[in-house]
């Protein structure tokens, strides 16, 4: 059974607690995510995933329902405080196992990890 861990950050804290210019908050950096990846790999449950560049660099396309040309805008949906920073796909027996991994994901610190079952078509 495949689950995706959607790693969310908030716009106000794009670096997700990672030490900013003031160096005040020390959150998980890229090394923490790489270490987590390696752990998943070693356990044989890693089934994919990717990291994304800053939400600032996103381009959004949206057309009204029923047709029309899509409007292109810079950045993610302006109203949303959250953005997807990356995904990790794991292949585990059930939701309990998925949650056990998600609990250890560095993304939970200063961000939010959403666990979703992947639909197989």
């Amino acid at each position, binding site marked *: *059974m495949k689950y995706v861990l959607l790693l969310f950050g908030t716009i106000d804290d794009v670096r997700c607690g990672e030490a900013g210019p003031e160096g005040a908050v020390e959150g998980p950096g890229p090394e923490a995510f790489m270490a987590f990846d390696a752990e998943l790999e070693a356990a044989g449950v890693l089934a994919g995933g990717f990291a994304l560049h800053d939400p600032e660099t996103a381009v959004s396309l949206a057309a009204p329902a029923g047709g029309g040309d899509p409007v292109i805008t810079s950045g993610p949906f302006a109203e949303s405080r959250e953005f997807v920073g990356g995904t990790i796909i794991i292949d585990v*027996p*059930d*939701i*309990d196992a998925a*949650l056990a991994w998600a609990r250890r994901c560095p993304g939970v610190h200063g961000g939010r990890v959403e*666990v979703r*079952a992947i*639909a197989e078509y």
Partner: protein
Amino acid sequence: MGTERGAPGDRRPGECESAAPGLAVRDVLGALRREDRSRLLAALVARFGDLDLAEDATQDAFAAALEKWPVTGVPDKPLAWLMTTAARKAIDRLRRQRALTERLARLHVEQEHRVARAVEVSPADPDEIPDERLELFFACCHPTLRVEEQVVLTLRYLAGLTTAEIAQAFLVPVPTMQQRLVRAKRRMRVTRIPVRVPGSAELPDRLSAVLTVIYLVFSEGYAATEGASHLRTDLTQEAIRLARIVHRLMPTQPEVTGLLALMVLIEARAPARTGRDGMPVPLPDQDRRTWDRLLLEEGLSLAQQAAAGGPGPYSVQGAIAAVHAEAPDFASTDWRQIVALYDVLVILAPGPVVRMARAVAIGRRDGPEVGIAHLDELSADPALAEHHPFHEARAVTLELLGRPEEARRAWVRAHALARNDAERDYLLQRWWDA
């Protein structure tokens, strides 16, 4: 179990030839549906790993029994018969599904394996079916489900209530309850919630979720019995029935024993809780001679067992209920012991309502001056400000202190916050008396 109870030879001459066996079968099936349906369902979920399939197959098996037993008589081991039949029906359904949909072909191997297991287990062991309801309890009360979903799943699959009965009990429209059940089942299936007893590391938290659901059902029933409507399904009894199942399967978990003790002891007071006029009778005024002796004895023994297992939120609440149960009348209540138990409870289960109950107990122990001081300390708490028993407790204490004006104001506040007519009538009466 008698042999072939519905068989023609069983009937005395003069009995209605056609109706009598049918009625007997209906009675037997009714009892089985009530007591053992959840067991059957749990065993099928364990074999087939699919709640919907298990539910349909259980339904099929009962329908088959209703058709066949009036002719063949009730089998020697009706539950085993139902299990074998349900397993066959489940396999039939799987075959049909498989023939119909391409998608299921991918599950072929897994299903074959499960089917093999089901066929192998059930007819070979017709005496008993294993009680796998604990697994089902943990699945229905999985922390990824919303609490109200946990409640409806537990009542549907373990208490065996219909969706309409659950809707009626919670005063929710039937379609709303149906939607809630459908959503919960979908979540169970899509996210693949495991049907198993959690390992020892997770067990305390997961068990506590199961007990919370059972106690929620009980509390809902308790509040309802104080109301005007007596038409609602008796949720207090359903909760006790559920707790008995968990207790039978986990006899050494003190919190399970404690919860059962607590509910049984509260239920024992039911005959005294409502006056002839339908108004609630508070604990000090209850006629303790009408308390249910059998339930009291059972509850006291359970509370003792629970306490021996170490303190937990439910075992301590069970112990508090036991202290009340042991007092022949309100005046001889051992308030020192009750305060001591609340001292433990505020640490184990901190919260405004527990702090309020502790303040009331201190007032009973040390007198109303001390009591009102403790209660007034809590009046800044926003949760208690909206909690009518808090204002009721203040009113009672102020009356004891001979401060009728303040007492009346507290009764008015309590009246405004009351949840049902009987409570409101009662509080109005108390305001009037003050």
